[in-house]
Each structure stands twice: as structure tokens, then as C-alpha cells.
């Protein structure tokens, strides 16, 4: 399951660009590898992030991982529903399990991210390793 309308990072984040903003989450592959998400440390609204900077963190019953910013910008929203129900990241990674929203500093940065086909090929290559 790799939605066509998103862009992807090598760290398994996705970003959905809507005008000058981008909604960020982790992919289905990522949530499956993590297992049951037990806690999401949401980014602080107003935080200024540069592309590739750590935005927040996710803990699962098996692991803890950092979530990076797919592009630079200011955090304008965080998904507070995840505070009580972090399992939304597992059940709806591309929907209700979104993590935060960025006001993009430079929308042209999105072009450097993988599209769905590129991410599918990236996953296939990772599998082979």
C-alpha cells in the first residue's frame, strides 16, 4: 500500500503537499516494521525544522525511532488524537495516523523526495539486503 499522491523519504516518512503546507506521517511499511505504536512524541507547534532534522519520535512495543522532517518549515499542527490513541499510526498510517503539519519554507524541496514508484523500488531494494 503506497498511495500515489504522496512523496516519500528514505526514512519511511510520507508528506502530502496541500498548497504551501505538508502533512507528514510514516508509511505502512514503517508501521508494520515498528509493530504496535505505544507512544508518539508530537512536535511542538511553532517549531522551525530544516529538511532532515528530527521532528519527533515514535515508540512501539518493540522499538523507538526518530521521525525526521521531509522538508523544511514551521510546525503548524500536530495530531493530538495520537496522544490517547497512538495505535492510529498502525491502523491508518496514511490517514488518521498523520503526525504533524508543516508550513513549507521552500516547496521546491519536495521535488527531491521519492514518488510512489520510487519508494516502491526503494523498498524492494531494502528487502533484498
Amino acid at each position, binding site marked *: 500500500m503506497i498511495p500515489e499522491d504522496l512523496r516519500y523519504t528514505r526514512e519511511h*516518512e510520507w508528506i502530502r503537499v496541500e498548497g504551501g503546507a505538508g502533512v507528514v506521517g510514516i508509511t505502512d511499511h514503517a508501521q508494520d516494521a515498528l509493530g504496535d505504536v505505544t507512544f508518539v512524541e508530537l512536535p511542538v507547534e511553532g517549531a522551525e525544522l530544516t529538511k532532515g532534522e528530527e521532528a519527533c519520535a515514535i515508540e512501539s512495543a518493540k522499538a523507538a525511532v*526518530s*521521525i525526521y522532517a521531509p522538508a523544511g518549515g514551521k510546525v503548524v499542527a500536530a495530531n493530538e488524537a495520537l496522544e490517547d490513541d497512538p495505535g492510529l499510526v498502525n491502523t491508518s498510517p496514511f490517514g488518521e495516523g498523520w503526525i504533524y503539519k508543516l508550513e513549507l519554507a521552500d516547496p521546491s524541496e519536495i521535488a527531491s523526495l521519492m514518488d510512489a514508484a520510487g519508494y516502491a523500488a526503494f523498498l524492494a531494494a531494502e528487502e533484498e539486503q
Partner: protein
Amino acid sequence: MAGMHGMHEMAKKTALHDRHVALGGRMVDFGGWRLPVQYEGVLAEHRHCRAAAVVFDTSHMGQFMLRGSDAAGRLGLIGTQDAEALRVGRCRYGFLLNEDAGVLDDTILMRLGADELLLVVNAGRAETDLRWIEGHLRGDVELVDLSAAGWGKVDLQGADSAKVLAGLADVDPAGMAYFGVARGQCCGRACLISRTGYTGELGYEIMAAGDDLRTIFDELLSSPAVRPAGLGARDSLRLEMGYPLYGHELTEDRNPIEAGLAAFAVPDRPFIGSDRLRVLAETAPARRLVAYRAESRRRTNPGNEIRCDGRAVGAVTSGAFSPSLGVSIGMGYVEAPFAEAGRQLAVDTGRCELAVVVCDRPLYRGGTCRTNDPL
């Protein structure tokens, strides 16, 4: 997202390995063995154990059979369990200690007969334990490493486990007391069945030869009440009960007194480490093992510093999200004045200082392990 990849090489496979793979188990290395950390998911498996029953493959654990007229006498000098006083058909938790009363391993000793005892030990310590015990054996006693001979073990755990087992075993599970053990048949296969476990729920451990264990595992899973569970759920279940895990709460640098487990190492007879235990018992320990819970779901991790008013007073040994309590829980050693229940402390998780409160063990109080009415 990063840091999800692990290495796996040279680990041993249990007799149930093909079952785990067929069931979709996520295989990891643990104590030198390939074992499933989860099947459908840690949280679901944890909850199913508390609500119904699950089965774990615990074949990685060491099983040492000791036979001979001197077996009980010698074992009683090596480990903290009083093997000679242990009645046939009973099990006892205890330790192998070094001369300094440091914990070499925590074990379950089962008295199968007057001259026959089974010692169940941790996977990661099995080789060390074997050398240690063999080095201290004298007289008429023979030690057989059943694990090396292909024996394995499954743990059936959960309130429904007696109902499940009653239909499969010729031993009456409801008639077996907590920490009882009996020889019998399960699914027509010879085995040992003990009413023991590591979850806090009513449960049974079933020990059998590898071929027989496969049949038993398959039959247990054919019961609609039973699901397979992996190491992840096993860890969160034991942590909710405040049970120690070797390598975390117990090491060669910890003694049973500071771990709050002095009742399982009473130096009223000579055994390795008993002299030191008597000396240690004369003064209150400087540090104590505590269990704690947070208000948040944020996990604490082994090695995290425990603080009081900004000052380091201890360190975390285990941490996990508690599916039953809905918050982060953990255990750790703290300076004794900070160990009483209700004490507010903080844990430096590396990302923030998390408020926690010291709690009595067990943290989860709904466990069915001691029930007198298993059915």
C-alpha cells in the same frame, strides 16, 4: 525513521521454529536462540493472555535433570532452594549465587521424585550454570542437559488455560496447586506439567521431547481460546507483575536482598553464598529494586537515570508500556531512602524528565496465577 534493523546469525532454532515462521512470527535473537518477538502484535497478545490464554515457546530455557541418591543433597548446597525439604510434586523459585551472594541465575527447581529433580534456568545463562553446577557436584548424582538432548518447553498462560489443558492432558490441571508439578501425558505425549509461569496468570509449563512438543503446541493452538504469543508480550506481562528478568534486575552484581527476593534465599542452611547473605542481612541494603509507573505512555529504558529533585538516586533496569494499565511502567534500583511506595521520582529518558511514582509489586493486580478455582 531509522534504527529498525537487527543482526541475526548463528542462533539456535527450537523444535517449534517452523511453526513460528508459518504463524507469521517475527523472529529475533534472544539468549542465543531464534524466537518470535510477536505474531499478530505485542499488545493483542498481551491482552489475550490476560483475557483468555496464550502459548509461548520457552524451549530456549535450560532444563537440567539431576538424578541420584545425592541429587537433592548436593543441589541444596549449590542453589538457594532447600531441595531436600522440597516435597515430590512441588516447585520452588530460587537462585544460583556466587560466594559474594551475587546472582548467577534465577531458577525453578522441580522435585519429580525422591532422587530426581529438574532445574529450569535462563537461556543466556544455561552454559555458565551447567559448568557451575557440574563443578560442584559430588557423590551419586548424574546431570543430564535435557535441552541439549532436544527437549523443549511451552508455557500455556491465561485464565482459560486449565480449561484448555483439561481436555488434552491426563493430569487434572484444576487439581494441581500453584507451583505443583506432575509427570503425565498431553495429547498422548509424555511430558512434565508444572503450574508455573511468568505472566501472573493461571498457567502451566509443559516440558517434552521436541517431536512431542510440536504435537502439543499444535493441539494447544487448535483450541479457540489459545493464541500464540511472543517474547514482547512475555516481557510486558512479567513487568506488570514486577518479576525480575536476568540480565536486567538480576546480575552477578546484585543480591537477592536488594532485589526484594530474600524469601527465596534464606540462609538458614549452608549453600553457596549463604555466609555472605547472613552478613548482608545484618544491615539494611543501600539500594533496593522498585517498580514504578508514570502518568504518560512514554517509555523508560534500561540505564536511564532515576532522579529525586534533580539528584541521581538510581537507574532503570526494565521499562515498557503496560497494556493493562495504559501507561509506562518500569523497574530499577534506587537508594533505599527513595524506595518506599508512593515516592515521587523522575526518570531521565534522554528526551525529557518523566515523572514516575514508586509502586508496590505487582503493578497489575488482576492476575489469576494463585487462584484456587482454576476452572
